[in-house]
């Protein structure tokens, strides 16, 4: 299924290693959680990027000790209605400071694009190829957000205060929507 990153379709550099086979040399790999945890030290010696596919019913705290050495974490939405991975994503980004690729997999549909980006996902494994083109407009659907979430957008509450008391200064805390769009892209491009 197509991957969207920065609003564009990109090829998947990663290979999913599903069995006990050793990760192929020089190729970025995604390892399932159970195998990774059983064998982390060994796997992290791999000579290319390592990613983990983490199930949505396991605490991401277990992954925390390894995050500085992981290039990617793939979280899963078994159905789009199962929203556990939104919490996992926010914890990974905001609690544990994960800066690598956070990939949303599973039933990823266009009406969730905005939620996914706001929760901190920077790569979406889209379920319907036809939804890819909807990505830019999906992100522009809303310009006002009541909550400040991890992606750096400022909340309506702070914007109101800024408007009423202090002149809006340029900078991450008080950026306008379009600047936020730019900073979002800036944060995710690696």
């Amino acid at each position, binding site marked *: 299924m197509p991957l969207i990153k920065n609003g564009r379709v990109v090829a998947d550099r990663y290979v999913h290693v599903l069995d006990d086979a050793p990760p192929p040399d020089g190729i970025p790999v995604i390892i399932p959680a159970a195998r990774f945890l059983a064998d982390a030290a060994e796997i992290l010696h791999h000579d290319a990027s390592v990613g983990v596919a983490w199930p949505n019913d396991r605490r991401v705290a277990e992954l925390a000790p390894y995050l500085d050495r992981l290039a990617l974490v793939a979280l899963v939405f078994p159905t789009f*209605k199962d*929203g556990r991975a939104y919490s996992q994503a926010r914890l990974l980004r905001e609690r544990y400071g994960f800066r690598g690729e956070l990939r949303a997999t599973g039933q990823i549909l266009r009406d969730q694009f905005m939620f996914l980006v*706001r*929760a901190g996902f920077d790569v979406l494994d889209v379920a319907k190829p036809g939804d890819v083109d909807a990505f830019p407009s999906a992100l522009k659907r809303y310009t006002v957000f009541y909550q400040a979430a991890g992606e750096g957008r400022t909340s309506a*509450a702070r*914007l109101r205060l800024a408007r009423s008391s202090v002149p809006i200064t340029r900078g991450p805390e008080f950026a306008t929507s379009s600047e936020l769009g730019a900073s979002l892209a800036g944060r995710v491009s690696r």
Partner: protein
Amino acid sequence: MYIYDEFDRTLVAERVAEFRDQVGRRISGELTEDEFKPLRLMNGVYLQLHAYMLRIAIPYGTLSSRQLRMLAHVGRRYDRNYGHFTTRQNIQFNWIKLEDLPDAMADLASAGLHGMQTSGNCVRNITTDQWSGVAPDEIEDARIWAELLRQHTTLHPEFSFLPRKFKIAVTAAAQDRAAVKVHDIGLRLHRNGAGETGFEVLVGGGLGRTPFIAKSIRPFLPKRDVLSYVEAILRVYNQFARRDNLYKSRIKILVHDLGAEAFAREVEAEWQHIKDGPLALDPAVVAEIAARFRYPEYARLDDDPPELTQLRKADRRFDAWLCNAVTNHKVPGYAIVTLSLKPEGGAPGDATSDQMDAIADLADRYSFGEIRVGHDQNLAFPHVAQRDLPELWRALDAVGVATPNVGLVSDIIACPGLDYCSLANARAIPVAQELTRRFRDLDLARDLGRLHINISGCINACGHHHVGHIGILGVEKNGEEFYQITLAGRADERAELGTLLGPAVPYAKVADVVEEVVAAYVELRERPNETFIETVKRLGVEPFKERVYATH
């Protein structure tokens, strides 16, 4: 009342645009029903027995006259000239076409109305006491906190795909008129021993298939922490509640399975990480929200003006209404007026578009343009000058909303039931209608005193039957409608679930049984002013059971 600014308006407008796009994609077939259903639910659009149903949010039950006129317009233009006020302070229209919905929602948006948080697995309308801001016994206006939470939970990126719906209620008075103990989260504003104001936090209350009274997990939470604490609860719920079984997915099951202490520990552990982060409430943010709640410029008036006392003596009907539907106000010379939407033979909580327009006009004249919706399915005018009560009464009487039965036996709370709802097993409205006919005698109703009858057409309990003084639950047996009766439930600060009276009775017998229960109460009460609930608590259900089932 809360004044929308351009942020609020923009969000609602963007929501309308998004929904218009989604409806278009559904009608063209680009979206299947499975994909579309959760999206339409996020806008309060249900599919019921005969048609789509639109549920419109009335945040904490507060409406402006302009908004009420818009609801009247929607009823006229897109529906069948009436709407139904619900037990969560919302309004429902039962005949809206999908094709018309984008336009209807655009019309609603122009008055700051929308269907967000009225359906789907998200945080729902946050309800409060319908007398907030004017009740003499409140500590402060609970709606400010409801609004803060409303904004925080609207289209929340992390909590829009919860295991199930999530309902929060806030109260700020010793007498709980918001039923916080039967909500997923109940927040009770109170003063602690040191005189500080904060929240008691209760979780895991709820009715339905497995009813529970909420457990207190935090006796005192400073106001500054309410957003972060609620966030912590939601995060624990979102991650750990069951998703495999629809009937086990509410937070009450998680709290029950883990135990309240273990659940509280999970919440506290999560909360420790976030309590001092961006969700800690800046007093400036709270003040900004509070400032956009406008209160009227009350005149300096005296209590009990002569016009009032004169008419009370001269007109028994007026006096009856005054004693029943009018309650004390914070401000001298003013009153809170309840508009009964429970006329004899009526469907509880229904109002026609004509009535809504008339009520909006009266609100402009007598209530500073403000109306409240209660979870008892009645309306209220929160700011009426006592000297205006005679004129107002005559006008309300002409509109059909001055039946002096507020809180009495014929002030029945009922869900739409099998006449409308695809989840129902039995009808609720005709049962309510028949009961209002049986108890049409207002002298009798006054003599019986406070007596809450709640009727649900199925176990989902939208009529809150578990917490009715007399609770009636419709079930299906062999293709026929039967009704289980419970006694002695209560929804207030002493919330309790009702006790089953006995075997279910058929549709044709329900009104007879209720009359017998009431007759038993009259016989058994210690003194005329011992209320029904007090009598049942004192004697238990047995004496009632004997009388009812002896003759059946």
